[in-house]
């Protein structure tokens, strides 16, 4: 694996700018979760944790990333576009009729492995990929990213058991623990704590990280891929809407596009961050 030589904070700032531009152009989409997940997705793709070939998305020796919280697609699209999986022009046709970039991930989008959005399925999908890799005795890795509210889905715990039973140590699941979901805080809607304790009890290795501290994300992922004998869950403490102060920790920004004024204000802040991280 390459050392962290890329400027990840700068790349992540670009991802947020592109994600917000898409959502603004579409006047529809999910900025809150896209921003809480942006630093993690950026580190996975630009930090050397995933092997991929943008010119051959189905390359058989690739590693796999499953965005189980499919509504955060804008951040993933921004990364895939930056890497050249598809032309960046597509960004501005997000969610439009006849566009490539659908509201939620679709398998005909280069770089997307599975349709997602209906929550909870990505963990089992990731298990299946990891099991297939093991049959082939290959060394490829599988990563999945989940919302914390998503842990309320029963399918999650079916996958949690499967990963433990089959000792899927080629699999790392990351929980984007921003503590908010559509109807309010996870604590109010349906408490999910103790997240780490639950995964541990099911036989997973559990790690915690600050999902916006690139050194922490990088070193935690490096540790996670070294674990043997069991799957790894990383509980990432994050801030919903991270990077745009008026969106941060605001449940109202789960699935809403900014108006002209809000967009201008958000872009100013994101651009500042982009310039400062150069």
């Amino acid at each position, binding site marked *: 694996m390459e050392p962290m030589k890329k400027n990840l904070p700068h790349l992540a700032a670009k991802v947020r700018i592109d994600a917000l531009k898409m959502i603004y152009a579409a006047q529809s989409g999910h900025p809150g979760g896209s921003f809480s997940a942006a630093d993690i997705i950026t580190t996975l793709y630009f930090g050397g944790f995933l092997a991929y070939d943008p010119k051959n998305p189905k390359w058989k020796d690739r590693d796999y990333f499953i965005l189980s919280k499919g509504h955060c697609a804008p951040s993933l699209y921004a990364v895939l576009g930056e890497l050249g999986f598809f032309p960046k022009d597509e960004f501005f046709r997000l969610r439009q009729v006849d566009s490539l970039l659908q509201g939620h991930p679709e398998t005909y989008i280069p770089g997307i492995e599975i349709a997602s959005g209906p929550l909870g399925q990505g963990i089992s999908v990731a*298990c299946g990929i990891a099991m297939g890799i093991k049959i082939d005795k290959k060394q490829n890795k599988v990563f999945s990213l989940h919302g914390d509210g998503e842990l309320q889905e029963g399918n999650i715990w079916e996958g949690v058991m499967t990963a433990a039973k089959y000792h899927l140590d080629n699999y790392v699941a990351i929980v984007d623990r921003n503590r908010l979901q559509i109807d309010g805080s996870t604590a109010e809607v349906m408490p999910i704590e103790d997240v780490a304790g639950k995964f541990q009890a099911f036989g997973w290795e559990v790690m915690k990280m600050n999902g916006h501290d690139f050194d922490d994300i990088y070193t935690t992922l490096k540790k996670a891929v070294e674990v043997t004998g069991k799957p790894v869950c990383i509980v990432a403490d994050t801030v919903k809407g991270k990077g745009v102060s008026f969106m941060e920790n605001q449940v109202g920004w789960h699935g809403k596009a900014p108006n002209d004024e809000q967009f201008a204000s958000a872009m100013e802040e994101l651009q500042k961050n982009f310039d400062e991280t150069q």
Partner: protein
Amino acid sequence: MSNKIATRAAFGEALLEIGRKQENVVSLDADLSGSTKTGAFAKEFPERAFNVGIAEQGLVATAAGLAIARKKPFACTFAVFLTGRAYDQVRTSVAISDLPVVLAGSHAGILTGEDGATHQALEDIGLMRALPHMTVLSPADAAETKACTQYAAQAEHPVYLRLGRSGVPVIFDEKTKFEIGKVRTLNQGTDVVIFATGPLVSSALIAAKKLEKDISVKVVNVSCISPLDVSGIIEALQGVKNVITAEDHSINNGLGSAIAEVMAENGIGIPLYRHGMRQFGESGNGADLYEKYKFDGEGVAEVVRTFLKK
């Protein structure tokens, strides 16, 4: 047709045979491997057989993942759980994603018997044929089941394979050549055509034999319900005076609905009767239920006589 074999048993044999030749075949079960007949495959290829426990949503989504990793997964459990409990996983992770997963649903229909209504899938064809990308196969007997399993193992898109618990009469010998996706006329006739699927095909053939002195019955096997062989169905409707559809499934959204749609869309105005389930099933021996609901040969003959008022 005195010899009877359950289609799930034929599936289990086919899976083993195919698995020996096709290395990417893997099986997944959800604590019903004894019932789905994957045991022989699992015994010979333990590293390619998985059991995810009583977790049908996980079963289907895990199969999707294995397909991404270039395996040919057969996700096997009772049809009612596979298509009902895991419908969103089938829809999102398999059908929308267009992954070559085979969903093998056993215990379809009231042929399931004693377990009763909760375990008798009567809506599965409707659920599966509503999904773009999904091929829906409902074989009539053991030999056709093997051909359908072989087809599914080679398919590049999702396949739903509808299987039954109890023995059904053998119609085709092992050497029969099948053209999966096409309807097949098994008996010629002009008074009425019966479009049948699954175990009702043999019942329709028995009925045609019983009625042959008075009523000329054409029997057409529709083993592929989606995509439908529209031109084959239109051709089979030529020169017949009445139409009956016969299926161990709800009359809504299954074969009967599919045939009615073809007739309506093509302006074919022949009297139609949909023979199938109009209510949930119940407990009882499969054969006894087939008698009660007129799904056996005598029952189908009675349905024909009543419909034609002879």
